[in-house]
């Protein structure tokens, strides 16, 4: 058998800081350095890199330091120490680029299929009581920071509630979609910040603002369709899904962008969540249209709602294609067409 290849190293014994030049060589299961040796199994080998020093970490805290990295790599190879798979990938531009491509593809697949699946499982596993607790806390926070008590008197609120209960009852009688076990309508003053608005919290609390009711004072069918749309969010547990979805995307983004900046990490999370949110809106639109129709409500009146909202924001962002990527709802025209579709279908029936 040929003589084992040898290389000079600086040996630090872990007790003294003085470097001791030694010759290093390997045999079957042992690393020899000078008059000493260590079992190969207890030794940590360095990974091959273009830059930096090579160090072999010895059991018990000592180390062998090699100043000439290229000589070390040649010696390690001759001593039968091949590169690990990870190192081979790291040292090759082609394989490193391939891993980036695989990373992007993997992230896209995880986002498209894995994440919705995981969110579905998590939502199924979370008891309704926990969801309700989240809802209560969110509503308390909104009441403190954004909302004022409604200026509608008790009779007006009761009138809306009666209309709404009647719609649900009619829809149930007509074999409409399944209605969630718990939901409640809260009337609030949205102030300048929220304006004409309605939203569903996870757990079944639906908030509708005075401004929205005022805007659609003469269009009760539009109000009831909006409420049916919000009930769709409750039925499909969209609020909870959004919370989990945004959280997961945020964690992944922060691993990639790292400690660099929370701001940069937040941007992709927000954009990704908005796309998810638009899918949810479409799902809630479908539910709202079906429920309203079964409840004897003219859902095509929603068109009036969008027109008036558009008038309110003098120049709306709805028709700007760039704005869609940044928007949480589908464009207005698309939704008006969707709600009018029902009217045409209803006429044919």
């Amino acid at each position, binding site marked *: 058998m040929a003589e084992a290849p040898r290389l000079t190293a600086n040996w*630090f*014994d*872990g*007790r*003294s*800081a*003085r*470097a*001791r*030049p030694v010759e290093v060589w390997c045999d079957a299961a042992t690393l020899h350095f000078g008059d000493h040796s260590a079992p190969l199994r207890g030794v*940590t080998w*360095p*990974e091959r*890199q*273009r*830059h*930096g*020093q*090579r*160090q072999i*970490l010895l059991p018990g*805290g*000592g*180390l062998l*330091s090699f100043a000439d990295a290229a000589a070390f790599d040649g010696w390690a190879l001759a001593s039968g120490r091949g590169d690990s798979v*990870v190192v081979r*990938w*790291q*040292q*090759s*531009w082609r*394989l*490193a*680029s391939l*891993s*980036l491509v*695989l*990373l992007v593809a*993997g*992230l896209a697949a*995880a986002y498209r299929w894995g994440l919705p699946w995981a969110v579905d499982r998590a939502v199924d596993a979370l008891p309704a009581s*926990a969801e309700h*607790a*989240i809802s209560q*806390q969110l509503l308390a926070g909104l009441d*403190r920071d954004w909302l004022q008590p409604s200026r509608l008197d008790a009779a007006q609120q009761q009138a809306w509630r009666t209309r709404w209960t009647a719609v649900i009852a009619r829809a149930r009688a007509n074999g409409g979609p399944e209605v969630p076990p718990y939901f409640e309508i809260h009337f609030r003053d949205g102030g300048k910040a929220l304006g004409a608005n309605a939203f569903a919290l996870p757990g079944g609390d639906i908030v509708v603002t005075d401004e929205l009711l005022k805007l659609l004072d003469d269009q009760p069918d539009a109000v009831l369709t909006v409420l049916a749309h919000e009930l769709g969010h409750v039925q499909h547990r969209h609020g909870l899904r959004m*919370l989990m979805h945004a*959280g997961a995307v945020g964690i992944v983004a922060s*691993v*990639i*962008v*790292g*400690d*660099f*900046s929370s*701001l*940069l990490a937040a941007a992709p999370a927000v954009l990704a969540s908005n796309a998810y949110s638009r899918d949810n809106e479409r799902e809630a639109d479908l539910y709202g249209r079906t429920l309203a129709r079964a409840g004897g409500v003219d859902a095509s009146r929603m068109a009036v709602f969008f027109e008036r909202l558009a008038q309110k*924001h*003098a*120049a709306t962002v709805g028709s700007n294609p760039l704005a869609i990527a940044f928007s949480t709802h589908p464009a207005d025209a698309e939704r008006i067409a969707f709600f009018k579709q029902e009217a045409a279908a209803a006429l044919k029936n």
Partner: protein
Amino acid sequence: MSDLNAAPDAASSPLPVAVPRVLEIRFTGSGSEYFRIWAVNLLLILVTLGLYLPFAKARRIRYFYANTLVDGQALSFHGDPWKMFRGFVLLVVLMGAYSIAGKVSAVAAVVAFLILCLVWPALWRASLQFRLGNTSWRGLRMRFEGPLKGAYLACVPSYVPALILVASARGLDPEAMKAAGGMTPALMLYSLASLCLFVFAPWSLTLFKRYQHNGYGIAGQRSRVKLSVATVYLLGLKTWGVAILPMFVAGVLAAVFFGVAHSLGDGGAAVGSMLVLVALSIGYLLMFVVVMPYGAARMQNLAWNGTRSEALSFRSTLKFRSLFGLTLKNWLLTLLTLSLYRPFAAVATAKLRLEAVTVTSQEDPADWVAAVQAGHADATGDIAGDFFGIDMGL
């Protein structure tokens, strides 16, 4: 062992080395090489659903250490990734429980916050012990010797106002506030605590830095830092002064856009409000690019220039201008390349910040021997740190 040491020592150092001598710090890492390490690490993290994270971290630390040469000798990292894995799981469980508690109920959130406050200083110390204890130079392990009590004391100026803040926030009742014409005792306490948290920030930072820089050790060396609260407050004031600049730029831009939009009439109003938003975002970005490098550069210099040990003294000459230029470049390129520039940015920042420091030694470090492990007063912290491999820093 001693007779083994004697012979080669005598042979390898025939001449006494001149003292004091400067131990230069060099960083030889390459962005393109770290880019490839980063890409493969990320893929492995994705494939293992995040479980590879501690192993990726160990590899990153080894790469940065192997490229950090102090007086021609690289640092080495001895951390066992499997131990780091345990610490990682502990932190994930802790943070997961914390964020879930915050969403489920307000009381659970407060309890989780208190528990986190209670264990955080111990975790901080354990992570310093783990990182330093697994770092060696010339075969000598470094140490972190800050006492557990010190970690808790350093947290007092931030903890006391934070606790009052949380407690008084529970007492904030919109109805009662209206009745009392806005100012209830709870609201006064809340505002006072917020103000204290803000005003005490430089004091807190001083205590954190003092705790860290008073605890480092290698061989017979133990670091000591001279860092007065007054100088950190002065730095805080200067940083505020620097922060005014981006605010001013954003304000001027917003005003100009607003004016232009108004002169354009109706259609311009929407465009105008978009532009005002853009101006405010630019101001916000400038805050990060100007204020953070300023604070970081000056604080690094302040802390390291005040640090010395028996034989070592440190000098840090990190220039704000260099760190500002680098941060601006890193930000722009990271944004433009959709974060592909991130590993290059990490290497460039490490190089700039490390090479700004020089160490002067009154002894020849080759003469050093590892400190005798004196009787451990509190081994529990060491065991916790070592068992869990907690490592929170870079």
